[in-house]
């Protein structure tokens, strides 16, 4: 039996009827049409479906939608504000930190969670923060570099 739940996604309130077994990932993608969050393994192993739940990264394939009620959910669609890219998004473009793009939404949200809680992370802390996000294309080097560029630019350097 479906039940009606209230989700707050990217600052918007959504009322959705879901079966209790449905994951947040499936509800985001199938019910809300927010397909920027990717389903790559559905087992919590790859990080492609990462969203922020009250500013903390979670793999949305392991979270039931009903358990996300009353929490602030941020997906990739909510990262840019008023058409203005988040500095991490801009840095991913500028420093070639993406290729096929499938892991990119999850990677960006893991990075955002890190910088929000720790604005000046070390390289090792950056790596730890995205260690749950798999990427098969880039070899990761440019991703780490892009995140560190944002860190440095926040410290007053130019971001390019």
């Amino acid at each position, binding site marked *: 039996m479906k039940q009606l739940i209230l989700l707050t996604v990217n600052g918007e309130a959504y009322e959705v009827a879901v079966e209790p077994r449905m994951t947040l990932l499936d509800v985001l*993608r*199938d019910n809300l*049409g*927010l*397909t*920027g*969050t*990717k*389903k*790559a*393994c*559905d*087992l919590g*192993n*790859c990080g*492609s479906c990462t969203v922020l739940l009250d500013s903390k990264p979670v793999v949305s394939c392991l979270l039931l939608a009903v358990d996300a009620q009353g929490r602030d959910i941020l*997906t*990739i*669609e909510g*990262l*840019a504000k008023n058409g203005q*890219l988040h500095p991490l*998004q*801009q840095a*991913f*473009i*500028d420093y*070639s930190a*993406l*290729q*096929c*793009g*499938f*892991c*990119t*939404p999850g990677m*960006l949200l893991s990075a955002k969670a890190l910088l929000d809680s720790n604005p000046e992370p070390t390289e090792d802390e950056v*790596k*730890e923060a*995205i*260690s749950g*996000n*798999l*990427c*098969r*294309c*880039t*070899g*990761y*080097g*440019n*991703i*780490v570099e892009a995140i560190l560029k944002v860190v440095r630019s926040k410290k007053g350097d130019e971001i390019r």
Partner: protein
Amino acid sequence: MKEYSVVGKPLTRVDGRVKVTGQAQYAGDITLPNMLYGKILRSPHPHAKIVNIDTSQAEALPGVKAVVTGRDTGGIRFGFVDTPRYPADEYPLAIDKVRYIGEEVAAVAAIDEITAAEALSLIEVDYEPMPAVFDPEEALKDGAPKVHEEIVPTTTCAWQDWGVARDARPYKVVNNICATVSISYGDSEQGFKESDYVREDRFIIPATSHTAMEPHVALANFDSSDKLNVWLSHMSYEVKRYWLAKTLGIPISKVRVHKAFIGGAFGGKINLFPYEFLAAFLSRKTGQPVRIVLSREEVFTSCRLSHRMIINVKTGVKSGGTIMAQEVNLINDPGAYRGSSPVVMFLAHSFCNPIYNIPNLKHKGIGVYTNKAICMPKRGHGSPQARFAIESQLDMIAEDLGIDPAEIRLKNVRKTGDVLPNGDRLDSCGLGMGIWRVVEATKWKQKRGKGNNQGIGMGLAAMFSGAAYYPFGSGAIVKLNADGTATLFTGQAEFGQGSDTAMSQIAAEVLGLTLADIVLVSADSELCPIDIGGFVSAGIFVSGEAVRRAAADARQQLLDNAAEALGAKIDDLDIANGRIYVKSNPEKTVSFSQIVRDSIQKHNGDSIIGKGFCKPVPEIEFYPSLSKGTGRFTDAYGFAIAVAEVEVDPETARVKVIRITIADDSGFSINPVNVQGQLESQAVMGMGDVLFEEIVTDEGRIINPSFADYKIPGVCDIAEFRHIPVDSIEPKGPFGGKEVGECSRAAVIAAIANAICNAIGARIYSLPITPEKILEALKNKGK
């Protein structure tokens, strides 16, 4: 070198913004009205007769719209290889028996995924298990279980369809042999006699998975005009639509592959897959769109693997290290169907052919059916396997003779101008220069063999820049617009490699425009011309050259019009910043858009459309001989020289890769950042190949079909990466460009393997090089 303004620049990707905002649509993100969800029932047996399939309960389940089995889909076969000699051997759904665990047996379409899954559980299949065979050397023996009976073609083969006037003939399977390759030149017996030192070694390479992050997806919709519209995870629409048309029995013009972004490929999304056929078949049956999204487990078990090989290498050298003769004998186990077996066994030779000058060579391969998952191309297709074996052995020979491994390579590498035994000429070859540079950059001589559990190793690899395979060429169209922009139509599909950006850069450069002035239409089979696809590293060299020619055609027409408007000679005109100017009088200019408008007004509405084509190896028709290795293969080779530095923990045998340096000869870099991205990608993928990756099976069942059990490199595994470009210009490539996307993986694998050996003083003959194998090798060394 000529100064360019768009190509050769590290411009950011044209698809960057849609990808960082989550707007990029992959096939699985697209939902059509009234769409159904498809799921596939797979064999739980490695080898079994199908006695009966009862679908009645599944069909009766509310919400189920269709259930299909091999009885419905019929006997049309398909395959990666479909030649007169090797007719296609796969079916979209098993007909009489199943040959591996994961083989497609039935499919359903239902109103949602949960109903489709429930319907699968209601299908009753009565199997009669048969003896199975999993080891290729066992399968070769008399009396081994027969994976296939005679394979009788039910239709013309693909080669006939493409114009080869030879009929497909039945393929009689003897001792489970699915293909053979026998290539030879010179006299290897004599070569060994003339050698001062001969050694022979055996290497084993397991299957690995591509693990593109996007799982395989097909969305199919037969519309009211009986046109099949599909959105797929693919690397070329031509191959997909040819096989969809053929297996569905519809004209190829009735299949449209729409543009979708593709979430990584690595060779794993080339061929037609049963799930793609089934989405289309179910859509036709139900009259509704059908989407099939495979689970990660299905991707691991049914979406093809890299090729398993046992490679025996015998090499003879002079005491100074000059190679005199080599014999390679390989056994390939492509699994339950032929997959790309004859091709990979050919490529295991032809990708090695341009590296060392080997005067006497024999290369033999036998492909053997087993009851395991099917193998297909993966980044380098045969090169990683062959280079691991040959480069490992070359290091052992160097050590046996007391020669530095870099020296023995320098002594034997081919150089620019060399003509290969098959007739291919190396118009650009940076092997020698690359070795020099990488030796210098890595302080090779100081680091080599210093002990302390640290090691340094080298590996070389080469790769075609496209080859003659279906559809044998690429086209491109450039349409000039009255607002001063240009629209480029190319069939190249963007799966991460950066083709959308590179193709746009080439067009912009030729037309004197900026990257932002190019409106791109790519990878839509209805809108774009013929395209060879994004495999065998053909993208830049073939499709990029077609784009260059199309843009040059448009440019010529533009200048013809401008000459009239400016009263100047064409030779005296050039384009810069969107304006055409007279070189001898640069004050005289006219804007690009003005000329396009003039052309429309004065020339009967001619809006200037340029077209271009390019064929790899234009001199030859159809394919070289795969089995004999004769005929021209490609027009340009890419090369990579990799050096790896590692540290091995003496207690745990854990390997830490410290640094990977790649000197690559990929010709002129259309986009240097994306070239570096391809190399870094391969450095990390190659590390996974050496350290972790192996598809493990037990009685034919893949026991590690998830990212939890099949480890790929994560961010914490990566090494320092260094790229040393070898400045070369390939005369036949667009602006001098050639392949870059596949070559380095094999070089990195060989380099890391050799570095580990250098660190521990013992050789590991199989991949992956796990701590267990290292400890075992160290134990044996002490004996």
